[in-house]
């Protein structure tokens, strides 16, 4: 019987839960979301690939002309690559609902989905 007063007190109050699909949830600014590369700054040193605990990064090509491949399903969003990159070319945005039914362009060995960050055509 000890909780009776607590229960009745909460009868009228607004429930603590939010009605998710209808009431949106805004990520806070400290949130670590989708990884994005700024290929202008990237020098292709590969430290981020070496440091990534989930082996979620791959380099296409060599050195300054390389493109970067990022596997959203493997990535654990820890932000180690952001920290290790000597040129601060990697940024983590606030985007978080990344799952979608988009078909995979390049089948590749595994049917995993990946995002290619292309080198800007500046020359």
């Amino acid at each position, binding site marked *: *019987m*000890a*909780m009776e007063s*607590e*229960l009745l007190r909460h009868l009228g109050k607004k429930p*603590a839960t939010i009605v998710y699909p209808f009431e949106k949830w805004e990520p*806070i600014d*400290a*949130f*670590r979301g989708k990884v994005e590369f700024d290929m202008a700054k990237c020098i292709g040193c590969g430290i981020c690939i*070496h*440091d*990534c*605990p*989930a082996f979620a990064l791959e380099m296409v090509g060599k050195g300054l002309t390389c493109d970067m491949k990022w596997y959203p399903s493997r990535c*654990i*969003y*820890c*932000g*180690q690559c952001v*920290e*290790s990159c000597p040129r601060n070319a990697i940024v983590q945005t606030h985007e978080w609902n990344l799952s979608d039914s988009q078909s995979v362009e390049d089948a590749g060995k595994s049917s995993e989905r990946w995002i290619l960050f292309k080198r800007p055509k500046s020359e």
Partner: protein
Amino acid sequence: MSESTYTVPIGPQHPALKEPENFTLTVDGEEIIDVKIRLGYVHRGGEKAFESRTYVQNMYLIERVCGICAMAHQLCYVNNIESMMEIEVPPRAHYIRTIVAELERIHSHLLWLGVAAHEIGFDTLFMYVWRDREISLDLMEEITGNRVLHAANTLGGVRRDLSTDIISKLRKGSKIIRERAEYYKKIGLTEKTILKRAAGVGILPYKDAVELCAVGPTTRASGVKKDVRKFDPYSAYDEIPFDLITYDSCDVAARIYVRVDETIESTKIIDYAISHLPSGPIGVKAPRSVPPGEGVSLLEAPRGEDIHYCKSNGTDKPERYKVRAPTLGNWASMARMLIGGYVADVPITLAAIDPCMSCTDRMTFVDANSDKTWTWSLERLRKHAKKFYGR
């Protein structure tokens, strides 16, 4: 019930167990005679994996040993490696680590309190406790960017600093959590239906707790004064005054009170740490490889004493990394607690040591989906029962 006993399998899949572990209870009616433990169902081969990853990558793998006490394992790992590298971590980083570790203790204890209430059928308390736990999760998300698996540490310090408005939120949050924890303590002491299911259940006497090397709140509820924050202080625990909570009624009720008191104690630690937060850098640059040698580090995770042993060979990958999570320390005493109790008490006794299976299983590289079918042979059990009655 006829004279012969029969086996009640609790697990591997069972609603009372959030994660698969397997007990064979030899039961006579409702009374339990014998317990056999079988683990390994969520075994991911952590230690073999540690040997094939660099120290930086291991920092995130060690965190995933357990989903609830992620910070505990990572802090223990970071302390271990930093002491082997002999680098000096700035005091401000120590204080921030202590704050996040205590926040995680609050969230883990409240999570457990809700699950324990659910085990004995008290769903209302479960709902209220988990609502209040959200405060500590939001605070951790504010500080580290993630509710759990925070990746707050890095080798040589902490990754994010505490801004002034986070500190004011911390102060407000810890005050609310302390009020709510005190309310739940009053409920735990006065609500008769909880006392009926928790008092005098799952007894672990002081002698057994010491003999079977029980750890954490389970052993402190049996009166054993063992808390790593006291006997082997790390981070900022040697500068922060807090008291060691023990009860000596050795039953599930005592484990509830130890955990609620520790939640209150954690809020006091956080308040002290905030008001005495030193200024200065939050980290130093750490080398990539560790000089050859050995290292042992201990830490008081929410579930108990967590020990890491590392043997390094000078490269940037550990030669051997052993993790013994708190729950494995309690399984032997768990078997001792169950014998003599009722089948109905199994879930609450089991939940009372707050088992975290993903902590316990991480040894070899095995995909252990045990397709073992559970056949119980009456003959072997009857022989066992005769031996039991013969005694």
